[in-house]
């Protein structure tokens, strides 16, 4: 028996048994089989093997289905676990605290250090006892002046209350101003530093 060399037909033989060939292909294979003993033998082998497949055990479908969990149980992750949610809330709260706290510290620091802010804040907000910190011998006058005079020269010039000072108080103020540094420091010195410099 000659071996067939038409591999295309050979490969279509299982499809012939499964009925998956279209009309034209089926006719072509049938015509070939009529003249090719090798392919007829192949077809017999395929038919035998296909028929032997019935010996697989029967499967109990209901038993298999009972083992399949419902869809929702299989696919978690729609909702986050409770623990993860709590951690998320804690992180969010920490971030908010950091932003609010840090921001308020920065704002208060800026208010303390900005000259314009001090100048526009009004005399009530700058009641710093300058005289108290610079001279001990004129306590009463200094207290009076300190209650009116701002701590910064520019603020002093802009203050409208300076017009209300008497000549003596003005003279005293001018004397106090002579004690100031000629060049202002880059950072305004804290009150306590001035206090410790002259009063002790």
């Amino acid at each position, binding site marked *: 028996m000659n071996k067939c060399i038409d591999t295309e037909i050979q*490969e279509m033989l299982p499809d012939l048994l499964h009925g998956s060939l279209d009309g034209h292909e089926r006719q072509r294979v049938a015509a070939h089989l009529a003249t090719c003993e090798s392919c007829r033998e192949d077809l017999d082998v395929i038919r*035998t*093997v*296909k028929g032997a497949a019935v*010996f*697989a*055990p029967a499967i109990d479908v*209901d038993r298999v289905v009972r*083992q*399949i969990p419902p869809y929702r149980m299989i696919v978690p992750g729609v909702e986050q676990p409770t623990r993860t949610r709590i951690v998320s809330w804690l992180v969010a709260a920490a971030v908010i605290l950091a932003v609010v706290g840090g921001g308020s510290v920065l704002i208060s620091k800026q208010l303390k250090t900005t000259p314009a802010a001090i100048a526009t804040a009004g005399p009530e907000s700058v009641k710093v006892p300058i005289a108290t910190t610079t001279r001990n011998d004129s306590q009463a006058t200094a207290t009076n002046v300190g209650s009116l005079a701002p701590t910064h020269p520019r603020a002093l010039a802009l203050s409208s209350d300076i017009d209300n000072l008497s000549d003596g108080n003005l003279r005293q103020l001018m004397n106090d101003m002579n004690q100031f540094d000629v060049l202002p420091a880059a950072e305004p010195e804290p009150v306590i530093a001035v206090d410790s410099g002259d009063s002790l």
Partner: protein
Amino acid sequence: MTPSPQSRPEETDMELINRWKAGDSRAATRLVGRHSQALARFAASAGEREGIEELVQDTFVRAFASLDSFRGESSLRTWLFTIERRLMLDRRRAERRSRETVPVQESDHVSEYGALDGLIAEEAQERVRKSLDALSPTQREVFTLRVQQGLSYKEIAEVVGSTEGAARVHYHNAIRTVKEFLRDE
């Protein structure tokens, strides 16, 4: 007038999958009923002798657990064969390891042949089983998927993790071996 169940067209696998996802457990029954015997036949043809029902069950449990990853690019049956084949390979590896550690007892052979006796009743089928045993594992898989399940070479390549060309070569070598075996018997 609503069509009777008999006149309703057969639902596709994808339609049944969507119904099952929507909570219809009957869709799972339809899917399992549609494909379970093919999976059992494939397992038996691939050389599995025991625990075929458990194997089929595990295949469906795994498949349903990962149905979201099934895109429908291949047929559901091809995808199920792929899962079942991986389970068979895992099972064989585990058996090989246990054989390496546990000595085989005489009673094991007796029970194996006892199960085979029940499984294969006729002489012709015994011959087919022997002829398939003469094939390499990959040849046997390719041949049974092609002959018994009617899968295309492209689908077979997907199941066995190979190429279409390699699947064709395995098929031709397999049919030549089986033919010679059956002729010589």
